[in-house]
Structure formats: structure tokens, C-alpha cells
């Protein structure tokens, strides 16, 4: 309470009276790691178990399995459906509790789930999806025995071909508790708050309309727990999000949906979205059926009418015009940090330096392969460069211009795992923005139907009143908190291997990386 009052007193000197009057007490969320089991009856598993009619229901398999895969309830004649997602498959063969070999009737058979072929894609493989679910459930890394390859996808390029060159022994032994994963977002030393986040990532912008209010709330509550941020996207705020204002980023995008003086004043960071990776060079899309009465009310639009934001800002033709925008926000919200979100054209490095000169605190580059919402396929695949190239290019150019240490470089667009986060930082980013990972934590299977009809059939990227009832805020929050915890563990393990005490030491350390398509005969930093 004292901390809250202190914070409120600080704000009195900064925020206008009308904003202070409308400010609601901020709510904290515990960073507690708890089991958040899958919300579907049959979790998709790596292995499937077949029980033949030869089974005599002796219950031996139940007794020996330490993972609790087989379930025979007391006084029940038949086995329950096995909890296949807990089964570690062939890795169990080496142990003395392998149910298949223990069963005297030879009634059990375990095979890799043939359904996995239908799950995932080159970028988000079924292994990455299953491992992300596992991390979201437990808050921990999946046991090696599960055999998930979740470090890389199968896209055959970018992060999927980059590896860390781990030393055989860490240069210095460090306790994991000593490792600091926080980063500072304001490096300009301009009198505005420095704003520290405890993990080097924050949640990507997903508007109310593109996703449900449950999804938005789960995201921001997890961000609150981890002392980081979530972004409003281009669509305004629900009242229910006000208790988390201190962990929200208000996005000012080209359609200006939900942009009001009040929404700019109440948050610590305001993001100008010039472009986005999923559809670089095109404005935001919200297709008609997702523009429900609730969405239309917040966006002050007409129900069921598709909302296509223009591209780019019609008031910006130059960096000077961009500066005018930033000045406007700085004037309205004296405590706000400013972020500029751009896509990755050839001249992304020039755009980054231009944004710096215009006064931005954070340059957020969004690579072509990311995105969570509706986008034309032609744009997703073909326009703008992948983020892996853009990070290196921008980092290098900012260094050459002598401003690298005065600006925070945030990367997004295809960051899927804790390993991707570490690789992005080693390539030169200070931190990253994650989006799809959070949705996968909530049960997304990447069926790509977010945009069609009533929206996501799994109740995540939808505003349909029936579909959104599939999950609740507490569960969603816990899943994302857990995922963040597992990602942090991955990051800490990597830093520990290199003997680093802070994630900031990893920034730009390309000498610690190798690319499988190169001879790696150049040592650079």
C-alpha cells in the first residue's frame, strides 16, 4: 500500500488532474508458478498408447508408471483414457518402469502420434507447440525424456540455422539467482522514467477485436506479474484493463482506434505503430464478423463493417513529421516513454536512426514472418526482410552512428522460444516482443483461422460471446506466467553457460553464435 501511495504521489507531479481523477487503483498479480493443466479433455501428445483386448486389468501399468499416464479409478472396471501427454515414450524403454515391457499380456503399444503431422508448420513445429504447452502447464522446461526439439523450427533459415557456441565449461561459475534478466527501456537520460522490466521481453500488440477480452486480460495480468508490459494493439481498452494501466502500452496506429487523450495519459509507454511484420506496408485489418457490438463500441465504428486501417500515417511524410507526433505525445503525457514500431524494409537501419533523432526511446522492429492476426498471405510471405537480418543491420548501423547506447532496440516477428529470445539479443537486440508464443500458451494450434467468420474456434482470437467462454482469465494468466518463467529459465541457463551475470552482457555478442550454413571463420563482436 505504501508503495502504491508513493507511486501515486509521484504521478501527481506528472499527470494532468483529469487523468489522475480517472485513475483507478492498480492491481498486482503474484508471480507464482502453479500447475495450469490443459483446458481440453484430450491433450495432444507426442506419443499415443494402444491397449489391446488382451489386457486383464491387473493394474500393473498404473503401479509402475511414475508419470501417471495410466489411470484406473478405484472400483472401476475399465481404464480411463490414458494421459498420453505425460508419456515420455521410447525414452522410458531404458528404465525399469516401461509399461510396454512390464505388461505380461503384451497388451500395450506406444507409437509416435501420427496426428502430429497435422499440427504445426515449418516455423512452429509440432514439437515447439507441444513444448510450449508443457512449459505453460508447469512453468518449467520439458524433461529431455519427452524428446521435444523446441530449440529450433524447421524453416531452414534464420534462427533455425543459428546456434550458440557454448564453452565446454563456463568461464566463471555463477549461481542462477545472481543472474539478472532485467533491461532498462529508457536509455536517453532525458529526465523521463527509466522503466525497468524484469525480463527482456514484453507482450505484443493485439487489439480488442482481434483477440478476446479474456486473452487481453490474461496477457496484461501476466505482464504485471513479471513486471513487464503488454500492448493494447489498435483497438482501445476495456474498462476491466484499467487496474493494469501501469503495465500497458497504448498503441497509436494509423486507424487511431481507441486513441484518446485519456488512453495516452494513463500508461507509461506509448507506441507509434507505423507498420507491422505480418503485413508490412499495409494497414491493420479487422474483418467484418469480428467487429461485434462490443468491439464497434470501443472503436466507435459500425458493427459488422470491416475495419481497414490506412497505411501509413496520413500525417507523416518525413522524419520531421514523425518528430511532431512524438512531441505531441510527450506533451500530453510527460512521463511516457515513446516507442516507434516499424517493419523491416531495406532501409530499416536508416528508419531506426531517424526515429532516434526524432526522440523515440524504443525502436521496435517487427520482422516479416511474425504476426498474430489477419493478413494477406502475399504480404506475410513476401514483403520485408526477416527479423534476423534486420536486428544485425540496425544494431550495426546504430553503433556506427554512435547512438546504440542511447536507444533501446526491441525486435519481434517470429520470436517463438526462449532460445529465439537469446539469439535475438545476441544478434543485437536489447529485448524482444512476443505474441504468438502467448497465444500458443493459451491453447492456440495455429490453424490460421483467426480472421474468418466468428474468429478463433479455440476462443482466443475471437470476440464471439459463445467462443470466448472456453477459457477464463485466471487460467490464461497462469499459463502465460508459467511460459514466461520457463523462457526465463532457458535464458538464465544460456547466460550461465557463458558466465554472464546480466542479459545486457549478451547484447550484440555475435561471436557467441554460429550459423550452420557458414564456415564461422570470422570472429566479430
Amino acid at each position, binding site marked *: 500500500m505504501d508503495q502504491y501511495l508513493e507511486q501515486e504521489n509521484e504521478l501527481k507531479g506528472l499527470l494532468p488532474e483529469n487523468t489522475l481523477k480517472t485513475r483507478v487503483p492498480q492491481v498486482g498479480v503474484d508471480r507464482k508458478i502453479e500447475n495450469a493443466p490443459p483446458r481440453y*479433455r*484430450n491433450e*495432444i501428445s507426442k506419443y499415443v498408447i494402444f491397449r489391446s483386448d488382451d489386457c486383464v486389468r491387473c493394474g500393473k501399468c498404473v503401479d509402475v508408471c511414475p508419470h501417471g499416464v495410466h489411470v484406473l479409478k478405484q472400483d472401476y472396471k475399465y481404464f480411463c483414457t490414458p494421459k498420453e501427454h505425460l508419456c515420455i515414450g521410447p525414452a522410458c524403454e531404458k528404465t525399469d518402469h516401461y509399461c510396454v515391457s512390464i505388461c505380461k499380456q503384451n497388451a500395450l503399444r506406444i507409437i509416435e502420434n*501420427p*496426428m502430429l*503431422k*497435422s*499440427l504445426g508448420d*515449418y516455423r512452429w513445429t509440432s514439437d515447439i507447440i507441444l513444448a510450449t504447452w508443457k512449459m505453460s502447464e508447469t512453468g518449467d522446461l520439458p524433461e529431455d525424456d519427452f524428446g521435444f526439439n523446441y530449440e529450433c523450427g*524447421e524453416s*531452414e533459415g534464420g534462427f533455425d540455422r543459428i546456434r550458440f557456441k557454448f564453452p565446454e565449461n563456463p568461464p566463471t561459475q555463477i549461481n542462477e539467482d545472481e543472474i539478472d534478466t532485467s533491461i532498462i527501456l529508457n536509455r536517453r537520460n532525458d529526465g523521463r522514467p527509466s522503466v525497468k522490466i524484469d525480463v527482456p521481453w514484453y507482450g505484443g500488440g493485439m487489439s480488442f477485436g482481434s483477440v478476446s477480452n479474456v486473452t487481453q486480460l490474461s496477457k496484461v495480468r501476466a505482464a504485471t506479474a513479471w513486471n513487464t508490459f503488454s500492448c493494447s494493439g489498435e483497438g482501445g481498452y476495456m474498462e476491466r484493463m484499467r487496474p493494469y494501466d501501469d503495465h500497458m502500452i497504448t498503441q497509436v496506429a494509423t486507424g487511431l482506434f481507441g486513441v484518446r487523450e485519456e488512453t495516452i495519459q494513463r500508461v507509461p509507454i506509448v507506441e507509434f505503430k*507505423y*507498420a507491422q511484420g*505480418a503485413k508490412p*506496408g499495409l*494497414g491493420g*485489418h479487422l*474483418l467484418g464478423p469480428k467487429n461485434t457490438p462490443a468491439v464497434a463500441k470501443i472503436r466507435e465504428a459500425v458493427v459488422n463493417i470491416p475495419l*481497414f486501417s*490506412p497505411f501509413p500515417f496520413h500525417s*507523416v511524410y*518525413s*522524419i520531421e*513529421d514523425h518528430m511532431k507526433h512524438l512531441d505531441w505525445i510527450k506533451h500530453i503525457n510527460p512521463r511516457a516513454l515513446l516507442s516507434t514500431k516499424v*517493419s523491416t*524494409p*531495406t532501409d530499416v537501419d536508416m528508419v531506426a536512426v531517424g526515429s532516434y533523432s526524432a526522440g523515440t526511446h524504443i525502436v521496435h522492429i517487427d520482422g516479416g*514472418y*511474425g504476426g*498474430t492476426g*489477419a*493478413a*494477406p*498471405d*502475399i*504480404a506475410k*510471405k*513476401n*514483403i520485408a*526482410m526477416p527479423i*534476423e*537480418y534486420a536486428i*544485425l543491420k540496425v544494431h*550495426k548501423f546504430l553503433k556506427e552512428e554512435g547512438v546504440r547506447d542511447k536507444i533501446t532496440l526491441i525486435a519481434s516477428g*517470429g520470436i517463438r522460444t526462449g532460445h529465439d529470445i537469446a539469439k535475438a539479443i545476441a544478434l543485437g537486440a536489447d529485448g524482444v516482443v512476443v505474441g504468438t508464443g502467448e497465444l500458443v500458451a493459451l491453447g492456440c*494450434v*495455429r*490453424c490460421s*483461422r*483467426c*480472421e474468418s467468420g466468428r474468429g*478463433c*474456434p*479455440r476462443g482466443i482470437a475471437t470476440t464471439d460471446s459463445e467462443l470466448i467462454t472456453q477459457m477464463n482469465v485466471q487460467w490464461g494468466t497462469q499459463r502465460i506466467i508459467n511460459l514466461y518463467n520457463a523462457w526465463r529459465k532457458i535464458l538464465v541457463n544460456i547466460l550461465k553457460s557463458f558466465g554472464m551475470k546480466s542479459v545486457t552482457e549478451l547484447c550484440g555478442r*555475435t561471436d557467441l*553464435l*554460429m*550459423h550452420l*550454413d557458414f*564456415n564461422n571463420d570470422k570472429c566479430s563482436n
Partner: protein
Amino acid sequence: MPDKYHIKTTPVPPRLQRVGKFGIVDWREDCARCHNCVKKACVYDRYRQETEYIKNLDEVNTLFFECMGCFSCVQNCTKGLLCLTINSEYERLGNHYWTPEIIQTTWTQAETASVPVSGAGYRGKFSGAGFDSMWTDMSEIVRPTRDGIHGREYISTYVDIGKNLSFLSFEDKKKKYKTPPQFFIPLPLIIDMSLKEFSFPNLEHIIIETAHITDLISIIDSIKWPDCLESSQKNNIEKYLPNIAFYLNPDAPEIPAEMLNKTRLVEIPDSEEVLIQFQEIKNKFSNLIVSVRVELDKNCLKRVQELTDAGVEVIHAVADYNGDEKREEKPRFIKDMIRDIHISLIKSGKRDEVTLIAGGGIALAEHMAKAIICGADIVSTHLPLMLALECRLCSNCKANSICPAELDNVEFNYGVGRMRNLIAAWHLQLIEVMGAMGMREVRRLRGDVGRAMFYEDLEEEIFGSVFGTRKRA
């Protein structure tokens, strides 16, 4: 400025059951027949549709594979009886180049005439062969156009066919030379001749009608004259001829002069006598533009230069239908060959004196934009229009087997509607890409490689600076 180009479209549903990607396998013998069956809860109502489909079947041709792959029923079924599977028929579609994804998206575009939109980011490989090894650029802030297809500003997709003079010469205050003939089409796309496998009765009628209503050009083999027109088209022949470019097949009887005179473009095959033939046509029909069809093989670069030097005004360079160089064991891809030709013509100072049409491997709207960036003025294609008619590229026709797409039964209005819709969707996508680049005219996109990023270049320039030398495959 010409009128804003717009193709009026209406949805044209498929004739046949869709070959979808996903389907559900149902182990119904263990079904508990519970009251909360997940089948009733399918967001897409696919189970009811499947039942209707099966009820109405006379014979089993295709299984019902229209599942959207959301796994909801699979994960919620009380007894866990449902499994999601990929349709093996879907996986068998096309070949290594014309992938099932390309075929399916073409079907959707031909049905809806809209730009394919999906969620959840990009799902494919980082890069790939051919056109997949380049990305188009976008303009962040400083740009002459805005808004793409949804905006009020006009992005022109018109292109010229014919020679541009490098300079004007005057004598006695009059132009020294007659301005060479030139015309424009509203989209940098020409409908190429049909492959010989595709020879069903209505095909040419449909293509000619499509070219007419979209105001494009279709190349028609003269051997098919006059059967290429159906009776109502023959009665209004003058309406159709401007959108027909006859390929003057040496084995075919001559096209009547009064017909040729009413066309704007004619194509002749490359041969040793091609320049003589070219001159003969020009002498007879001074306003007719003559295109020479050249195969993209190892000699094409030299040949295109020779023909341009000799005054040929349009060259149609054609790779095989996968976009590969012809007759080579290790073929180059069309984009690389077109780049070489374009650069060679620039170096010789002749680029504007010839219109370069690139054909072969143009499978998607993005290929049109990318081929133009690599140096083509116009692209030609044919297979996507066959896909629009629900062709599966199964090659049964090559073996004279039964066509699963029943192309022989294609109705005229259906065929025209599907092809028109596909062309309209390509037009919209071209505008999307150009809008992202901040360009307002496709003519200015030609050869503008600054508007593209090439995988090889980015790997060398950016990753090479930190990872050293690149291993070559």
C-alpha cells in the same frame, strides 16, 4: 490517364467436392453416444455438412475433407475417438513446384476473387528456390502512394506493349521516323497458349471470353482457328480480336488478313528465318506488333540481344512450366535468366526498344510482381487458369486417363467466371504489393531490384559480416 481498372466479379463455387487438407478420422465403434457430442459443437458445422454430403452421394468419388484443422473436436471428444489427418489426395496435388498450397489458394481465389487472408503469421520456410528466394521491399514513411487496395489513390497496373523510341528525331519540323505502334493492357499479364494436354472443347472459347472481359491478351495457336471461337463469339468477332494474339504456327493455314488487321499483337516462333518473317508481317500490317517467342535456354541471352538489335519489338521468353531453363540438367530459374537479359539489354542501351514478356513458372500473383522486379515488362501464364477450373495437375491427361477434374464438362460461364475471378484476385494482390512498396505505377517496377531483397545477397551481406564465408550447397 486510362480509366481505373476494375474487374467486376461474383463468387463462382466449385463444381466438384473440394480437395481439402484436413479431415477427421472417427473411431466410432467406441463412441459413448454422449449428449454433449463435440460434432454438434463444430464451429464450422463440418460434421453436419459431411453427413449431408454422404447422404447425397450417388457414388464415392472423393471423401469429405473440409475440416479447418482446429483440433477442438479432437481434444474435446469424451472418449478421445477423433483424430485429425492430412488428406493424402491433397498431398498428391501438383508437383514439387506447383505445390498443394499453390493449387488450393488458386482454387480459393478463382472461387472468391478475393485476396487470400489468414491469421497466425507465416507458416512456411525461411526462404526457398526460385521466386521464394526474394522478398519485396516496403516503404515505411516516405512514399508517393498510400492505402493499397483500400485507398482512394490510384495505383496503375497498365503496361505498354511495343517499342519505345530512345529519342525523337526531327527533320523539317516533322518527326523523322514514324512512331512505332504501341498499345497498353491493364495488367502485366498475358494468357499464354494452352499446353497440348489441355484440349477440351470449350477451352479456347473460355479463354477468349476471359481475355475480352478482363481486357487482357490471350495467345491463341493459329492451328485452332477458327474453332477457337464459339458461335456467338464468331458473330461478334470484331469485339474479340483486339484481345487475341495469334501464334502463327508454321503448320497452320494462314489467318485471313482482315482478321489479323484487327488484332494488336501477333506471335511467331523463333527460327532462322524469323527476321524475314517479322519483316514480311510488318510490311503487310504496319500497325500490328510482332512478338517473337524465344525459349529460355542457354542461348537465350544472346538470342534476345540479337533479336533486339535487329529491331524486334516484343520478345516472349518462355521457360518450362516449372520456371526452369529448358534442356539443361542443372537449369537456372526464370527469375535469374530474366535478370540477366534485362541487364544485358540495359548495357546495350536497348532496353526500352523491346517489350520483354516472361513466361513459365508464374504460379502466384507474387510471381508476377517478382518477375517484373527482375526485369520483365509483362508475364505470361496458363496453368493457373487451368487450376482455376479445378485441375489438379495430376497428369492423367498426359496418359489419356480420366480427368478427375472433369475438364471436358466445364461449362462456359463457370469457366469464364473462375478465370476472371483469379485474374481479379491477382490484380488486387499486385496492388497490395505495390501499395506496400509505395509505388503508383507498375511500369516503374520493371527491373527495380532496389524494391526487392534477395536471399543470397542478404545472407552474404548481413550474416556474412559476422559468420564469415558461406558454405555452398
